[in-house]
């Protein structure tokens, strides 16, 4: 357990930057696949923060949380991509701005 030489704070700040970039991706990209990828980026940023905090607290709980986030992400991706495939068949488009059947 040598000294890492880098403050935990920097890791967490980096994670915040990545998280925000993921958020921006979700909000701005119109391609549904890209939107999912941005969500993955957000989850990864959260993972980075968790690992950094786990380092700080020298505890295993953070690592386990990361493990579960990864697994859940895998499950989400499977369902999400299936949905995209389904909607592509119907609409021949995966532009999420084309999803506006409901108006009020």
């Amino acid at each position: 357990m040598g000294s890492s030489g880098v403050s935990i704070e920097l890791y967490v700040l980096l994670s915040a930057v990545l998280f925000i970039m993921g958020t921006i991706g979700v909000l701005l990209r119109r391609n549904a696949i890209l939107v999912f990828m941005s969500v993955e980026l957000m989850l990864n940023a959260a993972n980075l923060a968790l690992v950094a905090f786990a380092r700080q607290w020298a505890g295993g709980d953070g690592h386990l949380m990361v493990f579960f986030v990864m697994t859940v992400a895998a499950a989400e991706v499977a369902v999400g991509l299936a949905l995209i495939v389904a909607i592509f068949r119907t609409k021949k488009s995966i532009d999420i701005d084309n999803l506006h059947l409901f108006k009020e």
Partner: protein
Amino acid sequence: MFSVPDLSDLNAGAALPAIFLGAYACLLMIVDLFIPRTRKQITVALTLVGLGAALALSLLALGDVVEFGDGAVAFGGMYVADRFSDAVNVTVLITAILGVLVAYNYLERIRRQRSEYYYLLLFTTLGVMVMGAAGDLVIVFVALELLSIPLYILSGFRWPQEASEESALKYFILGAFSSGFLVYGIALVYGATGTTDFRALWQSIGQIVADDASSKYLLLVGTGLVLVGLGFKVAAVPFHMWTPDVYQGAPTSVVAYMSVAAKIGGFAALARVLGAGMGNLTLGGEAAAAWQSTVWIIAALTMILGNVVAIVQSDLKRLLAYSSIAHAGYLLIGVAAVGTPAVTDEAVRAVVMYLVAYAFTNVGAFAVIIAVEKDDASNTGLDSMRGLAARQPLLAASMAVFMLSLTGIPLTAGFVGKWFVFKSAVAADLIPVAVIGVLTSLVSAYYYLRIVWYMYFEQGKGEAYVPAPLAWAISIATVGTLALGIFPYLLSDLANGITLAFGR
């Protein structure tokens, strides 16, 4: 802590109803392979048997007849089998039974009679049950996903119908987006406290509060983001926008179940996280928790927006979507009251009672919509209610009961729920928000009673098809709504035992 515990040390018995349901669902998947396509009613019957058995187990636990396991804590603190979780189990299992009953003929009619529907429903029910027993933020997250992902799939169950697909994709994208916030919030809370376990969290927060340590910033921002994730699930304003679109597009039988189950899960998690994990997060020497004001402001916004916008809706499903947003607001009042330590118990009970009342009423209302809906998903407008009383007097009477209950008229379950929630809010010094609650529920009378009006006092075709399972579901819901309204002590007696095992 330093040795790998034997599985029997985990006190897994305490989680028996949930474990049973999970195992049963897996088994059912295998058994279903051997059931021919044309005889899927067997699968439905088996699903109902499983849910009924789990309900029986939960009732035994709730009534203290049998004690499964040893004490409340199971799985090393991950699962908390206290009265609260028992009550959540019972509520969601009743909802699931009603959900299966309303789905069977509906799926038949829309030609989607697939047994996957029923397993997915079992899994999402399991998600809610675990959520209600969460003792750790990890469980909150995992159970939330186990609750949500099947619902995303079910929303899209009617593909290639565009509306269904679209609602599923919207729900999914926004759900994944908001669970990103949830995870980041959990990360920040973990960073501030070094733990995700509610008991340790409580201690750790106590220390931060006592020292007035500056890590409270991290903690508060983390708490806020966790609220975002859970607020999305319960459709609180301003995270509500998905609700009308999803409710309108998804198959109605899914919406009937989802509108209640997701709320039960979300509010159970809110009560757990805020009540048992962060109830002592008090700053500046105040008695109430720091998140209380946030929650009640959100509650006020939710009630006002939900009720006001519902007034101008012309589609029943959309109207009930806004109505469910409004009810999330009333429930959030109860959650806000949890933040005052002296009324935590009372508020948690109020939330549970409201959920029970809401479960019967709302599933019932959607069941009526299923009855009038055409096979091509049309005829869900308000017009479909015109003159229903003439053709279908019993159906119309049930719908009238549900509408009165949603309005909160005395002698219906909805009144009892509202009464307790408002009372807890008054006890927690949240008088303004109680006043807003009373005012907005007066406003809500307008659009609920308009439906009653259409049914009874206007001419129209008012067609409906009520096959036996649907009729059963509607009858159960009606009887439940009325029984709870007329004999509220049935509910309040049970509720009196409800406590959160941790959190004081």
